[in-house]
């Protein structure tokens, strides 16, 4: 890997690049999914290649080639330089200075997921799948996944870092239908389960089969539940939905490339401006957000980002005040603060972008029961079902799989088709309590989209149940 990267960096600098980096990435994924007792998908995929990024006359160029040999590396380097030279624009891109580093990083694992026989993975899925069977359950699904990403980054400044990141994930989901009402329920999170940087012990700890009967029972109950009424009320969210709320309405708007508009043509921009740093009130005093790529188990954990910047925990919102952005070396230089540390690429054939690492809502005090106890009338919502937010990350609308009304501090009847909507700073301003460390959980999602060509990032969010006052719920005309 070193020799291939070195060939690329040497070729780029010889061709006139003032800066060059080369990343070799070897990625392997296993995925098992079952549906209604059948194996729906059983796949083992791998991909490898080199991505070469260059700065020529202040302009970026990037080229990727699947061939891991000196010829492939040199071809990619020269093509990247050609693209950079041809790129229209004034081009005066600068990088925040860093001290070159050498190092390695590896996800600690107890049980290597690729040593776990596929047959065992199939059996785990089928057991959980079968445990969801029941009247009115139309679709039962279970999945497990594993990923290993081995990569080496070499830069013309002398940085050389090698990392092996290992992920595992799992989840179950079922759908029920009755009299035209269609409802779904999942565990441990929405969409395709939850993932963690870990060995197979993470999947074993989820106890999919043990949770399956509850999931199926709730799906069946939901088709008989009343629709969530609309109105303005107190909203309590479970930790899973809080995690997505953090992702969409804090994570993306604090990506400094969005603030500068460089994502405008696809994912969008941000309601934040560079000079909001240190002065913008993002939310209430209970709101504390931290970016932390050192979090054990986080999908956004690493030793070094894809520019070779060492992982570091940084505050983003402190007691409701915006105190940090997620940055690259380029955006850090532009704003004149920090040196980056949030650059990540989706594999060898994508350019690194400013991405979330692990972004957490720091815990408060007490339990979910304590949050509910202080609600005379409201709604408690659990597990995301739908999400949408505008291009500046202001107006959002989320739906959850299940909800319950809250009456005099206790959960009441179950509700279906629950939604809530708001405007980001006002919503976070209405946060009046976050549950404590014992209720704080890490959720890992693998479908964060950004960039052209598109890239999917894997990120984690730590969150606890939280309470918001005066929120519009049950959005519908």
């Amino acid at each position, binding site marked *: 890997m070193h020799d291939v990267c070195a060939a690329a960096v040497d070729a780029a600098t010889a061709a006139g690049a003032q800066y060059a980096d080369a990343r070799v990435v070897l990625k392997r994924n296993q995925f098992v999914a079952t549906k209604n007792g059948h194996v729906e998908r059983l796949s*083992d995929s791998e991909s490898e290649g080199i991505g070469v990024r260059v700065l020529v006359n202040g302009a970026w160029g990037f080229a990727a080639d699947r061939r891991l040999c000196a010829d492939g590396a040199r071809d990619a380097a020269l093509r990247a330089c050609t693209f950079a030279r041809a790129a229209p624009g004034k081009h005066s891109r600068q990088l925040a200075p860093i001290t070159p580093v050498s190092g390695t990083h590896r996800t600690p694992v107890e049980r290597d997921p690729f040593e776990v026989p596929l047959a065992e993975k199939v059996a785990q899925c089928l057991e959980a799948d079968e445990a969801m069977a029941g009247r009115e359950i139309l679709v039962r699904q279970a999945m497990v996944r594993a990923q290993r990403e081995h990569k080496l980054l070499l830069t013309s400044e002398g940085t050389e870092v090698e990392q092996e990141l290992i992920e595992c994930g799992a989840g179950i989901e079922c759908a029920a239908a009755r009299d035209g009402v269609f409802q779904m329920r999942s565990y441990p999170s929405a969409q395709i389960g939850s993932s963690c940087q870990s060995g197979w012990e993470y999947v074993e700890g989820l106890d999919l089969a043990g949770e399956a009967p509850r999931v199926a029972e709730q799906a069946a109950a939901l088709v008989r539940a009343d629709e969530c009424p609309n109105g303005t009320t107190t909203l309590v969210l479970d930790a899973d939905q809080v995690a997505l709320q953090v992702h969409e309405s804090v994570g993306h708007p604090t990506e400094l490339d969005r603030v500068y508009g460089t994502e405008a043509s696809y994912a969008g921009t941000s309601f934040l401006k560079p000079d909001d740093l240190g002065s913008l009130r993002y939310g209430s005093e209970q709101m504390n957000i931290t970016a932390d790529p050192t979090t054990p188990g986080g999908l956004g954990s690493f030793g070094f980002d894809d520019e070779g910047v060492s992982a570091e925990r940084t505050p983003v919102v402190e007691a409701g005040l915006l105190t940090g952005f997620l940055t690259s070396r380029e955006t850090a230089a532009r704003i004149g603060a920090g040196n980056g540390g949030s650059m990540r690429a989706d594999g060898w054939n994508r350019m690194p972008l400013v991405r979330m690492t692990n972004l957490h809502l720091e815990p408060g005090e007490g339990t979910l029961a304590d949050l509910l106890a202080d609600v005379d009338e409201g709604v408690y919502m659990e597990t995301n079902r739908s999400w949408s937010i505008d291009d500046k990350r202001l107006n959002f609308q989320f739906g959850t799989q299940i909800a319950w009304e809250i009456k005099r501090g206790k959960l009441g009847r179950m509700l279906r088709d629950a939604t809530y909507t708001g405007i980001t700073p006002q919503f976070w301003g209405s946060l009046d309590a976050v549950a404590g460390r014992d209720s704080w959980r890490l959720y890992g999602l693998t479908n964060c989209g950004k960039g052209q060509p598109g890239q999917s990032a894997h990120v984690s969010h730590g969150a606890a149940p939280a309470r918001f006052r005066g929120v519009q719920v049950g959005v519908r005309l």
Partner: protein
Amino acid sequence: MNALEVAKATLESVEGEAEAVAHVEHSGLARFAGSEVHQPTLIENAMVTLRVVQDNRLGVATTNKIDTAGLAELARRASDAAASAPPDETFPGLAPPASAPAVAGFDDETAALGPDDQARLAATAIDAGGDVPVYGFFTSALSELAVMSTTGLSVHQRMTDATALVVAADEKGSGYAEQTAWRAKSVDPAEVARESAEKAKRTRGAAEIESGVYRAVLEPYAFADLLDYFSHDSFGALGLLEERSYFTNRLGQKVFDEKISITDDALDPHGLPKAFDFEGTPKRAVRLVEQGVARGVVWDRATAARVGDGAESTGHAPPAELRDWGPLPSALSILPGSAESVDELAELVGDGLYITRLHYLGVLHPREGLITGMTRDGTFRIRDGKIAEPLVNLRFTVAVPDFLREVFGLTNKAALVNSQNFYGERYPYGVMAPAIASARFPVTGVGSKPGI
């Protein structure tokens, strides 16, 4: 090696029943922001997916290591996967040999475009933006798909595609335009930028409106996006079988306005033509909606076998990594209407909204086709039959069947709207959509102003 050679070498590396799908990509994308290229990406790749069948046990493995050793390792992993699976008695078998229909979709000049050309065409868009900064990209690619199997199936297609996409935006306003085609000469980056910049200037001074149900004109960009999201649950056979589809128990019934006819037609030379699907089954044009009546959905071999009763694959098997979604349309086409222009549609609406583009759609309720999202980069009021003052971005929560139930009209021309966003391997697809005027577009909130 081309895709057919990769597929052939892959099959030679494995014993027994198997299918190889090879996908080759040579692409370049010059992405720009603030009228300057900032993320130019060139990709050279060749992926092959091997599906092994051992006594009805199925295993799938994928690699881009296409030398002899890499393919031998691929065969081992696919065989291991198959050996780990229980027999699937519902497996319909690998697709039989078939002749792929002759389709358009390949252009030598587009295939030959290199990084200098892609940068030059991006510069054309940047220059045409004038005094409004532009954000977007020009991209072109040559991609190849080949499917071979031990049944004797062997199909191969070379495809080209090009897209210019521009958001023109400053602090006060933003506009949007795009063009996609399989022939780069059919894409005019300068025209895209001018349309976008002109739109941006008209969005300055945007106002808010009250929530409520409005009449609305949706440009092709917006209509295509809405229909694409609706199609994921409602136009595929798996959605129908799992009762997620709005068409569940409604096939043969009138569900939309009679002005609405929708097909999925990958053979249309005006779209991004495809000859076969990811199982190698030839593509067929499928009538989904005919004069407002729900007529059908798209099928792959697995869903067709599941229902039996003469059902056949329509050539809509997705790639292996999306197989659990079931068959999906990838060449939706809405029959145009008779309106000469969007201005004529605005006249039909009288009092309502004019919407250029949608953003971040989310399906709230698949069975009801209930979708939420935001408008973006060009939202206006329609007053007295004319497109009037600009509006801020609006949140909508619309049941697509309600939106399509009372349609005032559609334009007489459809535009091809790119739907891929270029995640994963390059496989360009889009929606052919006219502009539409509908009686029902529920607005449930207001968001940010247009602009950067």
